């Protein structure tokens, strides 16, 4: 019983095997991909392992505190930022192995030519609550 974040990157991940950008896919390939993602989430709900799934817009702003009584400073987006997160899925599973298995399935989503993208996904464990028994 542990939660994992499956993180999908716009940029920053190693190149996928089937690395054709989505704007070069056919309409049907895009539909199939979207369908695959929806089916995957539905399967996780059905198996009692789904916690959350969200997609992020590619562009955002950097914001920081600028001192008492002043509005926050905004800046960016910065094109040179190496890592750009596209979205995530949070799962609650029995083991790390299961988290990896599910990430593998998600990475098999079809892309150009209807073939799996083999996209690299990042799997990150959540920090949990401390266990009661430690010694």
């Amino acid at each position, binding site marked *: *019983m542990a939660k994992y974040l499956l993180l999908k990157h716009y940029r920053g991940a190693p190149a996928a095997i089937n690395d054709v950008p989505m704007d070069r896919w056919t309409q049907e390939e895009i539909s199939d991909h979207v369908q695959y993602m929806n089916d995957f989430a539905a399967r996780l709900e059905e198996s009692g392992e789904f916690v959350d799934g969200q997609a992020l817009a590619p562009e955002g702003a950097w914001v920081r505190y600028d001192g008492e009584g002043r509005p926050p400073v905004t800046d960016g987006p910065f094109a040179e930022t190496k890592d750009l997160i596209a979205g995530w899925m949070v799962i*609650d599973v029995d083991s790390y192995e299961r988290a990896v298995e599910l990430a593998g399935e998600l990475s098999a989503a079809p892309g150009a030519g209807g073939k799996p993208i083999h996209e690299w996904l990042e799997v990150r464990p959540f920090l949990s*609550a401390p*266990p009661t028994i430690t*010694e």
Partner: protein
Amino acid sequence: MDGVLLRSLTPGVIAVLVRRGADFAAAEDAVQDALVEAVRVWPGDPPRDAKGWLVTVAWRRFLDATRADASRRRREDLVDREPAPGPAASVDDTLQLYFLCAHPSLTPSSAVALTLRAVGGLTTRQIARAYLVPEATMAQRISRAKRTVSGVRFDQPGDVATVLRVLYLVFNEGYSGDVDLAAEAIRLTRQLAARVDHPEVAGLLALMLLHHARRAARTAPDGSLVPLAEQDRGRWDARMISEGVAVLQGALARDRLGEFQAQAAIAALHADAPAAGETDWPQIVEWYDELACLTDSPVVRLNRAVAVGEADGPRAGLAALAAVDGALPRHTAVAAYLHERDGDLATAARLYAEAALKAANLAERDHLTRQAARINALLGAGPSG
């Protein structure tokens, strides 16, 4: 109305419905409905026979659901078979429910969820909140679990060890929520101990009581972890400790040692020390040796290295640690502690910082980060040095 008392009736009522011919999944749903109804109705109109009331309402709900399923013929069969309200179900029924909910065909998380609902009488929403997942996800987990055990005969004997593992998980992962899972685990283990004469059941109950007794002292007001050695022992629950010790002594007298009894014995030795400095570490090392024989777990060897460090000095502890797999969680944290005790502050600070990066939970990470910062300040290097 006492919610815990109400929930304690849950397994017995499910068992009555199953004995009358309802399948487990439908019986469990009907009893959940009856519990909700009881919470609504009882405050104004408490029944004299609480269990009888629940059986009547749950059975009616079950028949309604069966009717809704258009299984008219089956319903009429059941109505024909409906027995007169009899004596309370035997204790074995409740025990069977423990076995069913911890069935080896279930994954640990499913067994935990099903046990909390069907044996504990908690609602799906309460369980979902306790484990920080959406209610729909928990509902699916529970209904899948019920499907998984649907073919299991209710009167099959089970293995008490599987039940103990589930109860241990509930206790040890006592997440926050509106339900106190640690207290719930103790209640369920107590209820089990009243039904099964097994030294490991008593051992687990003792282990839980001895750890739960320290709960108030385990966290500072800001939520940070307070290590055992620094806890205010005056805040330990002395009554709970003496109960835990008594339960443990009863179990050990049976001379059938098991993992939980050995763990409880270690907890009892800590509880027995009026101050951290008076802890009987040599005897704790002996219990870790026993535990290592019983489980051969690397975690036990890691904790044993800590105890050896206290009993025979940090060098001995580091020597014991050298034989433990370095990839183990908390290995680096233990090494940091032993190096600090050994006076090697630079190594300790570096290892504490490294251990913080490997910590599996936030409280531990913050604690280890503070340790690194404390030693860095001593070294005059500053927190970033």
